[in-house]
């Protein structure tokens, strides 16, 4: 038995064990403290991801919509807009990106012209577009399905935009506009082949009109109002087609200086049955593509057309995530279900937004391509 005063010669003395225990305890306590602190911080941190919602975050969608006075700024919901001359977008009355127009500094040209200098330098190409639509319409320009810029048509309906800094190659350019009622024109699209240093200009484009009717069902002999917005003073050809026998009725209306057109069609001229209606504009010898196609019924009672479940301006089909746009996100959702058995919930969505055949195939993607907004 050790006597008092004898030194503890065991490999692990009590003091040593105590020291070892203290070190490990210190480590465990520190870890617990740090982990608790981390958990607290995690619960306070906001993870910013794009979450699908039926209410779009219009202040962060890179589009001037709702009551915004600029792209994603202004209005009741978003922060105040910075000067449009410093937002990196060709908007307002700018003639270039953040230059030109009544408020911004003049757009500077480049340095001396001509070639020369070192070889191997690729000179970028650019695409210029201009044309007519309804006054103050919000015009979207897409490159290969992606929105590259937006602009407003002026009070005469004229719009123009520039897509700079492009490599040589084939590009699909699409343009559509949204009117004051939130109705969208079909997109006009055209592929274009660019070579280095070229400027391709698409001039005098005429966007299709928007179209609406006051009724979805009209009592025979009562009038149905067909109306919309088009380029000012354009001649608009409205085609009403009997869905059963294909017979057509065509009326021509000239839009006002503010781009409004309207026609009261006496349904006594029509047989009972289902009809479709569309319109196209002609201005300066140029005829636009057709508007969206609407349907109505000639029957025994009047039923007014009321706003549907979707807000005005939202695509009526193919918006799979409910964000009021048809773009790569919707394409990705459809691509996930491509050649897969649909879940019950997605089958219901497919029936509502696509062609309701219970599967995702090229037909659904074609529908999506038609309603594409970017």
């Amino acid at each position, binding site marked *: 038995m050790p006597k008092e005063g004898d030194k503890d010669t065991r490999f692990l003395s009590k003091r040593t064990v105590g020291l070892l225990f203290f070190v490990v305890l210190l480590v465990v306590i520190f870890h617990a403290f*740090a982990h608790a602190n981390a958990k607290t911080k995690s619960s306070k941190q906001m993870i910013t991801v794009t979450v699908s919602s039926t209410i779009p975050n219009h202040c962060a969608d890179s589009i001037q919509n709702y009551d915004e006075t600029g792209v994603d700024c202004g209005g009741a919901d978003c922060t105040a807009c910075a000067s449009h001359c410093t937002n990196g977008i060709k908007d307002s009355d700018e003639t270039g990106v953040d230059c030109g127009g009544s408020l911004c500094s003049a757009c500077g040209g480049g340095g001396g012209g001509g070639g020369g200098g070192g070889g191997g330098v690729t000179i970028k190409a650019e695409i210029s577009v201009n044309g007519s639509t309804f006054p103050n319409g919000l015009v979207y320009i897409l490159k290969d399905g992606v929105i590259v810029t937006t602009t407003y048509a002026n009070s005469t309906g004229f719009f123009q935009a520039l897509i700079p800094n492009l490599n040589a190659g084939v590009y699909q350019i699409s343009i559509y506009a949204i009117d004051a009622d939130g109705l969208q024109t079909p997109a006009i699209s055209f592929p274009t082949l660019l070579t280095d240093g070229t400027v391709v200009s698409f001039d005098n484009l005429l966007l299709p009109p928007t179209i609406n009717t006051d009724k979805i069902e009209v009592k025979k002999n009562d009038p149905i109002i067909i109306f919309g917005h088009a380029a000012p003073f354009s001649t608009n050809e409205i085609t009403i087609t009997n869905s059963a*026998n*294909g017979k057509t009725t065509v009326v021509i209306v*000239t839009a006002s200086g503010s781009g409004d057109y309207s026609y009261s069609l006496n349904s006594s001229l029509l047989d009972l049955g289902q009809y479709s209606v569309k319109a196209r504009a002609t201005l300066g010898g140029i005829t636009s593509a057709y508007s969206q196609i609407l349907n109505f019924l000639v029957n025994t009672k009047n039923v007014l057309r009321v706003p549907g479940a979707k807000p005005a301006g939202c695509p009526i089909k193919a918006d799979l995530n409910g964000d009021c746009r048809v773009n790569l*996100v919707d394409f990705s959702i459809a691509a996930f279900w*491509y050649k897969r058995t649909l879940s019950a919930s997605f089958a219901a969505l497919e029936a509502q937004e696509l062609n309701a055949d219970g599967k995702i195939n090229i037909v659904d993607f074609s529908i999506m391509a038609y309603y594409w907004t970017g």
Partner: protein
Amino acid sequence: MAGIFIIAVFFLSAFIGSSARASVFSFSRSGVQNSYAGDEFKIDAQINCQGASLNALEGNIIFPADLLELENITTEKSIINLWVEQPKVENSANGTIFFSGITPGGFAETNANVFSIYFKTKKTGQGTISWQGQKALLNDGAGTDSKPTANNLAINIKDRLDNGNPAVVSAPADSEPPEDFTPEIVRDNNLFNNQNVLIFNTQDKETGINHYEVKEEKIISFLGLSFKTGSWKTAISPYLLKDQKLGSNIYVKAVDNTGNEQIETISALQPVRWYENFLIWCIIILAALFIAVWIVKKNYDRKK
């Protein structure tokens, strides 16, 4: 509504069928039209819209695999913007290439390129490169099939009787990387059950996109040292992220058919703190134990 002058014209007309003829798929072969064994040649798969506005194409191309070796498929100058399925060999044994894609907004070109195929002849013989199951859908909001027809391509591979060199076809020169793009993290109930998913897409105008790769990289800093984890993985969009806590930097690489790369980055939305990493704690505890044992051993040796 001042200023509106209405002219009403009523006429009834019989139903007028579409004046557009059916669209036509075909092949265009550039350069030398005759082939000898060992030659390379290129054909462009094309669509003639014949006045119709189309927005979706799909189909199979069948080639005689006993006569032809497929060397490459490129999508430069393609009218298709978004591939549902990028053209690729579905069955190398019987020579089947499948493709499917859309172009938002539609197109109505006379001879639009769909994609290009590079072949090398294996031996003499005759065969046909043909279309099968082709679809060209109208840009009408309903996906109506325009019922396209197809022109196939006959090939006749002969013996080279002279001492000439085999024909060689090179892919276009391409020094440009794919175009800039913005990958996006999304969540949707209909996409991997509301998990964090990465979506991405871009174009390459010179030779087309070959594939994409994704890397999820965690960076753990400790005592002035940085540890990185993660490696590149071939990926298709939509891509289910491994790190659902979004604690990793995400890199998406688009690679074209020449090997040029464009890399885009999404920074970690919730960086990993060092004290959240189990590996770091293992190192600390082992180090503490090592130090403690070393102290003990030293004391023991001193006492002895």
